[in-house]
Every structure is written in structure tokens, then in C-alpha cells.
């Protein structure tokens, strides 16, 4: 699975992580819906860390389309409302 962290980099993640990522995605949507900013940032950070630690950066010679694009790490809570709604980043 190829995941891009917008404005940062593209990573190749083991397919097992998809489920974990999807769960975090759903939690993030729930946090946004509950208007819980602190909780959202904690989940979002966990999401980014999962990709950064479990994933391998794509080489500069790899031209791949991402399966998932995670919004920029400096995303504000108000911007999060436009990203994490409905099914979130990853359709269920």
C-alpha cells in the first residue's frame, strides 16, 4: 500500500497496516464530529507516526500513485473538518 503524507513524502506500507490506518481514520472522524480538538490531534499524530515508522520512503526513481493521501502534518482543526468527515480518508 502506498501512502502519501501531503507536503511530506510517499511511503510504502505493509498491507496489514491498512486496517490499523482505517481504524485511526474512523477515530479521527469521530473526534472531529465530537469537536474534540485535543483528541483529534492525538489520533492524527498517531496516524502520521504509524506511516513514518512502519513505512519505507519511496525512492526518487519510483513514480507511483498513492492509495491514500493523508493531509499535511500541520493541519489545523478547522481544516480537519473538511478532511475527516463521512468515511474519512479511507472509504470503509
Amino acid at each position, binding site marked *: 500500500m502506498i501512502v502519501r503524507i*501531503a*507536503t511530506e513524502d510517499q511511503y510504502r506500507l505493509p498491507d496489514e497496516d491498512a486496517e490499523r490506518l482505517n481504524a485511526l481514520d474512523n477515530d479521527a472522524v469521530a473526534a472531529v464530529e465530537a469537536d474534540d480538538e485535543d483528541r483529534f490531534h492525538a489520533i492524527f499524530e498517531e496516524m502520521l507516526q504509524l506511516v513514518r515508522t512502519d513505512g519505507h520512503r519511496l525512492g526518487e526513481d519510483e513514480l507511483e500513485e*498513492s492509495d*491514500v*493521501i493523508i*493531509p499535511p502534518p500541520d493541519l489545523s482543526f478547522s481544516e480537519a473538518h473538511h478532511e*475527516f468527515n463521512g468515511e*474519512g*480518508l479511507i472509504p470503509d
Partner: protein
Amino acid sequence: MAGMSGRMSVVIKSKINKLLDRAEDPSETLEYSYQKQMELLQNVKKGIADVVTSKKRLQLQQQKLEQQVVKLDTQARQALAQNREDLARTALERKQFAQTELQSLDQQVAELEAQQAQLIDKEQKLRSKLEQFRTKKEVIKAQYSAAEAQVKISEAATGVGEEMADVGLAMQRAQDKTEAMRARAGAMEELEAAGAFDDNLQLGSGGDDIDRQLHELTSQSAVDDDLAKMKAELGQGSAPSPALEEGAPAADQPQQSPGGQA
């Protein structure tokens, strides 16, 4: 995929598909796509240059504020030496305000610097990917049938297009932040022009009342200093201090004036 990021990839794909549908000859599409991307790379370079310019402007603003802090501190000391605690307090209040602004500006410039470094890094990466695309298109042109080439081109173009869009997004965010900072710095400049912390102590040049009073004190004490120096040169007593210039000593010793001794 919902949201902006999802939309981003959808937009890229539809644009690329439109591009591919239009051309019948895949190699033509490849050339066109490559040219287009090289053009976009120029925009990225220009965008980075804009961020650098904005940062330099902010740094100038920073320097001005630093000078302001030093000046206000000096003014406060001068006011205090003249027993004008009220003026000293006002100067120190302004110094505090300027320092707070300076701190937030320092932090913002540091953030901007990090973003700039990231953008330069991304531009480099984009350049590598474009180079990769260029190589790939030659291989595709040489090895694949038209139908297969179409698919391969689409993959490669989407990959490089996504990279391009991502650099664009990073640039947009850096520019938005810079704009916000510049607006803030502009507001600071307006305050300055209105005399909130006027840089110009010359009378009649728009300085506010407190600046004027501080200026009067400064010039007064400079006059006192000059007077004391002159008196010392004329051999009138030892170390005459401005604090003693109350008028009374002169009245007590009228014979000490140079004019009277001639």
C-alpha cells in the same frame, strides 16, 4: 476517499485522463505531458523565490523591532535619570509589547525557514521524478504498443502529477502562512507610522507626545552635558554635574563667571 486530499488525486487523474484521451499518438502525449511538467517546475522555483522574498521582508521587520527594543530601553533609562518615572514606564511598556511581537516573529521566521528547506527538498525530488519520467517515456515509446503505452503513460503521469500537486500544496501552505505573517508585520508598520513606537525622534516629524517629551529630556540632558563640559574646559570648579544645575549655585557665586573675571 473524502476531503481535500482525495479531491486532489481525483483532480489529477481526471486531468491526466483528459490529456490522454485527446491525443491519439501516445508518444505525442508523453512529450506534451513532459513539457507541461517542466513548465510547472518553473512555477515551483518561482514560488520558492517568493517565499524567500517574504521571509527577507519579515527579517527586516525583525531587525527594526530589535532596534526599537534597544531604543526604548535607552529612553526608559534616560527618563528615569530625569526622575520621569511616568515616561520610563510608558517606554518600558512599549518595549514589552515590541519584545512580545519579536518573539512571535522569531518563531514564525523559524517555521518559515523550515518550510523553505522542505520546499527546496521537494523541488529536488520533483526534479528527480521528472527525470525518471523522461527516461520512462523513452522506454515506453520504444518498447510498447500504443494500447500498452497508454496504460503505462497513465501510471507514470499520475505518479509524477501527484508529486507535482503535492509540491503545489506545500507551496500554497507556505505562501498562506507568509501572507498572514506579512499582514501582521504590515499592521505593526502601521502602528509604527502612527507613532506607537516611533523610530524618529525629530520634533515635528509625526512623533507622538511621549516621544516628544522623551526627546525634550534627551536634548535637555545633552545640553546639560555640553554645558558641564564647557564649564570644565573653562576651569570652573571640579566635575560640575548636571544635577547641580538648579540655578541656585550660579546665584551664590556670581564672580565665577568668565565674563566677570575679565
